[in-house]
């Protein structure tokens, strides 16, 4: 079972939910949490395990071989991203702008731009009891999150069996990286706040999930502030609300120190129980 945790905007409690839920589920079963917010992976600040594996992740970029180059200029003409530029008698490659489409490399008449691997980030795999935690971190200056997200998912597929519950902490927003992080999920949990900002951004996320034909449900964070518009919207749209995490200054304080919330605040644990029940039911349904 693959569950993605997403939100229309940052700062609504996505990482809080992902880390607490993963840790709570792991009290009774095998769970892997994967932080796919590769530009700002923060889950690792809350989950401390033993590092059991680490690997560099690569993307392919062209490398200029001066001796073979005739300076015909085809490479810079075919690059839609200005990642290859001819500067007088030399060719410059900008790896951060490269989308690895291979056009410059394969259309070069003299094979002067072979594709070579370039490090774009690091994947780390941690373990604490039942809980595995896999995070990938994009190197500073790299702009393409999608290839790293897709390679991280591949790692999860190869290293964990079907019966392990897989949680994905998706990047915020509704752009390509979010789509990449949620498109393989069986089910998406959207987290939001009961405020006009929260509602507005959640609607965008719901529309995105509809476009991807994903089932989704909502967890309301900071329940008690704001108004009922989020609840009304979910009812109208037939989106189940799995949990309402109470608005509590203590939650913010625990989060700020990098601590798990549910271990200290029983009401939060209770709400996570609701989410767990829902997931287990889904899993049962899936097996039948």
């Amino acid at each position, binding site marked *: 079972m693959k569950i993605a945790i997403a939100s229309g905007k940052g700062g609504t409690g996505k990482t809080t939910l992902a880390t607490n839920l993963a840790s709570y589920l792991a009290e009774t079963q095998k769970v892997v949490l994967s932080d796919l917010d590769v530009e700002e992976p923060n889950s690792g600040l809350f989950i401390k395990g033993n590092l059991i594996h680490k690997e560099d992740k690569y993307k392919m970029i062209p490398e200029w071989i001066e001796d073979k180059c005739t300076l015909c200029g085809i490479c810079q003409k075919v690059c839609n*991203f*200005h*990642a290859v*530029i*001819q*500067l*007088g008698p*030399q060719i*410059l490659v*900008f790896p*951060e*702008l490269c989308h690895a489409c291979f056009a410059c490399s394969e259309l070069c008449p003299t094979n002067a731009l072979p594709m070579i691997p370039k490090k774009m980030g690091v994947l780390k795999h941690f373990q604490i009891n039942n809980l595995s935690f896999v995070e990938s971190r994009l190197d500073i*200056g790299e*702009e393409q999150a999608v290839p790293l997200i897709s390679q991280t998912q591949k790692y999860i597929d190869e290293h964990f069996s079907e019966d392990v519950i897989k949680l994905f902490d998706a990047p915020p927003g509704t752009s390509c990286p979010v789509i990449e992080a949620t498109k393989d999920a069986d089910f998406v949990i959207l987290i939001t706040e009961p405020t006009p900002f929260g509602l507005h951004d959640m609607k965008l996320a719901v529309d995105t999930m509809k476009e991807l034909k994903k089932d989704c449900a909502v967890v309301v964070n900071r329940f008690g502030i704001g108004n009922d518009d989020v609840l009304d919207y979910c009812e109208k749209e037939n989106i189940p609300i799995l949990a309402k995490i109470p608005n509590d200054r203590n939650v913010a304080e625990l989060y700020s120190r990098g601590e798990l919330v549910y271990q200290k605040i029983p009401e939060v644990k209770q709400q996570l129980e609701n989410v767990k029940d829902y997931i287990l039911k889904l899993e049962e349904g899936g097996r039948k």
Partner: protein
Amino acid sequence: MKIAFTTKGTEWDSMMDPRFGRTEFILIYDEEKDELTNFDNQAIEGEAHGAGPKTAQKLFELNPDVLITGNGPGGNAATVLEKAGMKIYIGAGDMSAKEAYNTFKNNKLKKF
């Protein structure tokens, strides 16, 4: 000496464009010939990404000795200009091209 300015227009009185990659014009002053020419860079507006390297490439072709701009080029563009051996002076974003030139001549601009 040839001096390039990132500007919003084609005259000495035109305001500087503080941006590098997405500058509207590049103004070139050739001191020996006392001649002011310009390059219209407005097509850059159509580029989603990579505006910096693209403009830097243009500048490379124009081949000035000095570039005067506002905030300074980003990482990618800086790489290109470094290769070209161009001297870059920044902090002229709020001036007219003329003021920027005078300030440069008085050694009052910061080197990038």
